[in-house]
Each structure stands twice: as structure tokens, then as C-alpha cells.
């Protein structure tokens, strides 16, 4: 049977992708960011999953205002890299896992989570920057990836609690898949940041570090935090953090092993947070 072995959490700042693509990783400004992922690159070499279930948000690239799905699961065989306006990132295309993705869709929809099923979707920096941070610059991504897009562009996004419950349903779906697959669930976005208005540039280190502590220790309690607290404390775009609960909910109910934790300010406008949790 398939199983969830670990979860990875990381910010997905577009400037990180640009720094990699333009060969700036050695600059002192960026060394402070990429240094926090050196351990992770080694770890993933030793813990390479068969499939990554990658939770992210689209940033007005695959989805315009014509269609705003709250939860969208990518069931295609492959996904092209989006041109976000600067030209597509020079990274490999994403190879999906249509069989497992369709199995998860059927299972969680029957568990009352009304997903949108997507068979054609370009993927943007929200999905590709985490892959770059963990895998560097390979010719091809070393595993299959199921893109799972969450609306955090038009308010309101789903609640943290709903995301946490969905994560649990995804875990159940994965564990009922017949093939023996090692699956990691990744939650991306955040941490504190605001990209708009005179309050742009907001960062809240105390909030972010408390969020990391509580995501590890008491995720069900933390998931009850209302949207307004994210906006007020962590900036209008800090609300992306609700996506981390899908990955956390997909983990076993037993306390996880914290194998890596990293936090740094800034990458461009954003606080970078990163965790790797393993199921014991």
C-alpha cells in the first residue's frame, strides 16, 4: 500500500527562483536563503519519494478571474511551466501521477471535500520554486508530482481547519492506494509577507516562529486561527500559511520527528520558513 513518509514546508518566493535561474545563489544576500536548504537537498537525496503531493497556490497564471477553484487537483500526465510575464522559468516540466491523483480525487470527494479536477494546467513559481529549493537544477525532476492548487488570491481562502481536515482525508486516500508508493506531502507559501498597499513589507518574526512551534506541536489547535489573525499579524499574503495545514493533516496523528527547521528574513518581500517533518 502507499503511505505518507514525510512532509516538507517552505515559502515559495518568486525571487528565489529568479536568483537560481540567473546564477545569483552565491551572492551573500541569497547565500543566507539557500544555506538553509543545504541540509534539505542532502536529506531528499536519501529520502527520495516516488510521488510528491504538492500543495501550492496559483498566482493568477493558470486561473484568471474566470474560474476560481478553492481546491484544484491536477490529474494530468504532465504540466507545463507557466509564463508569468517574465517568460517561463528554465526548469523541467512536471510529470504527474494521474492514477494516484484520480484515486485521491475520488476518495476525498466521497469524504465530502468537493475538489475541482484539472486535466490541463500550467504550474507557476508556487510549485516550481519549492522543487528548485529541494532538488537544485536537475535535467528532470526526480519523482512524480501531483499539483494541488488552493485559492488564496480572492478572499476568503479556505479556513486552516478545513485544510487540516482535508489533509487527513488525503492521508486516508493515499493509504488506500494499492501500489506500494512512498509519498511526501508538501505545504508551501508564507510566511509573513504583504505585497500590496502602504503596509507592504510587513514581517512578523514572533508570529512566524510561534506558528512553526505550534504547527509541529498542536496543529489541530493552531488550525482554528481565523483568517483575520493572519491578515493582521502576518500580512495580507501571509494567509498563504493555511496551505501548510493540508500537509500537516496528511501526517500521522503521532508527534512527528522534526528533522529540519529554518527561518530567515528576507527573501525579497518575504519571511522564509522551512520545516521537514518525518512520520516516526
Amino acid at each position: 500500500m502507499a503511505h505518507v513518509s514525510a512532509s516538507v514546508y517552505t515559502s515559495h518566493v518568486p525571487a528565489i527562483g529568479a536568483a537560481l535561474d540567473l546564477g545569483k545563489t552565491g551572492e551573500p544576500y541569497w547565500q543566507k536563503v539557500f544555506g538553509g536548504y543545504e541540509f534539505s537537498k542532502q536529506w531528499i537525496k536519501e529520502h527520495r519519494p516516488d510521488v510528491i503531493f504538492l500543495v501550492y497556490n496559483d498566482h493568477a497564471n493558470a486561473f484568471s478571474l474566470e474560474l476560481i477553484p478553492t481546491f484544484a487537483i491536477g490529474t494530468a500526465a504532465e504540466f507545463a511551466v507557466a509564463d508569468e510575464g517574465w517568460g517561463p522559468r528554465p526548469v523541467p516540466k512536471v510529470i504527474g501521477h494521474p492514477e494516484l491523483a484520480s484515486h485521491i480525487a475520488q476518495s476525498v470527494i466521497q469524504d465530502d471535500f468537493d475538489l475541482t479536477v484539472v486535466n490541463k494546467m500550467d504550474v507557476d513559481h508556487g510549485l516550481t520554486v519549492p522543487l528548485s529549493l529541494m532538488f537544485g537544477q536537475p535535467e528532470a525532476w526526480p519523482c512524480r508530482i501531483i499539483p494541488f492548487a488552493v485559492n488564496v488570491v480572492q478572499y476568503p481562502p479556505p479556513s486552516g481547519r478545513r485544510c487540516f481536515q482535508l489533509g487527513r482525508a488525503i492521508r486516508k486516500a493515499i493509504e488506500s492506494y494499492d501500489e506500494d508508493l512512498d509519498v511526501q506531502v508538501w505545504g508551501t507559501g508564507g510566511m509573513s509577507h504583504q505585497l500590496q498597499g502602504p503596509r507592504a513589507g510587513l514581517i512578523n518574526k514572533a508570529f512566524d516562529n510561534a506558528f512553526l512551534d505550534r504547527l509541529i506541536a498542536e496543529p489541530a489547535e493552531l488550525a482554528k486561527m481565523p483568517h483575520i489573525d493572519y491578515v493582521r499579524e502576518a500580512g495580507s499574503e501571509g494567509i498563504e500559511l493555511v496551505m501548510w495545514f493540508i500537509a500537516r493533516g496528511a501526517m500521522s496523528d503521532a508527534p512527528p520527528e522534526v528533522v529540519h527547521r529554518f527561518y530567515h528574513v528576507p527573501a525579497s518581500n518575504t519571511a522564509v520558513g522551512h520545516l521537514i517533518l518525518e512520520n516516526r
Partner: protein
Amino acid sequence: MALDKPYQDIPGTTIFDAEQSRRGYHLNQFCMSLMKAENRTRFKANERAYLDEWPMSEAQKQAVLDRDLNRCIALGGNIYFLAKIGATDGKSFQQMAGSMTGMSEAEYRDMMVNGGRSVEGNRRIGEKR
């Protein structure tokens, strides 16, 4: 009953909710069109003519021509859509975000390197620091 909007007392922040989305629909869809290289070329060749192809308000068109992102947001724009204008102009996300704060590009960059804008005094309108 009116929608509950508890976020309206946050300073310098416009939440892109259903109402803003409705107000800014054509403005944001115009921005979306700039994802195609040929549209970016046409827009740059004659911005006014390109904007006139869209059923946007005159105020929205003027805000785009002025590159006044705060005004664009007040008129229903969303930053992820507006970023397509910045991409067309060759601007980074940090340059765009900084342009809304009244700070110079260097001041904004330095603020971020020094830990960003503090939340103290920035939670509620009228809050004392």
C-alpha cells in the same frame, strides 16, 4: 445582511474580496492578457489604444497609465494580476511592492534587509506605536 469584513480596520491594506473582485474584473483580465508576449508588444506600442479595447472605467485606465498601483488596487486590482504590468515594464516584485509604500526603492530594500516593516503600530488604524 451585509458581509462581515473584519479586515477593514487594518491600515494600508485592501483585501481582495468578492466585492473588489467584481469591481476590478476587467482591469485584472486586462492584466492577465499581458501574459502573452504579442499582447505585451501591442500594449507597449500604444498603451492607450490597447486599454481602450477593454471595458474598464476611465479611472482604471488612467491608474494603469500612471502605474499608480495603490490606485489600481483601490479600483479593484489585485497585486498578482497587476504584477503582469510590472513584468511588462521589467520591474521586480520588490520594486512593485516598494512603489506602494511612499519609500524610495533603496529605502524599501534596506527596510526588508533589516527585518521588514514591524507589525507594531500597524495592526489597526489609529493604533499607537
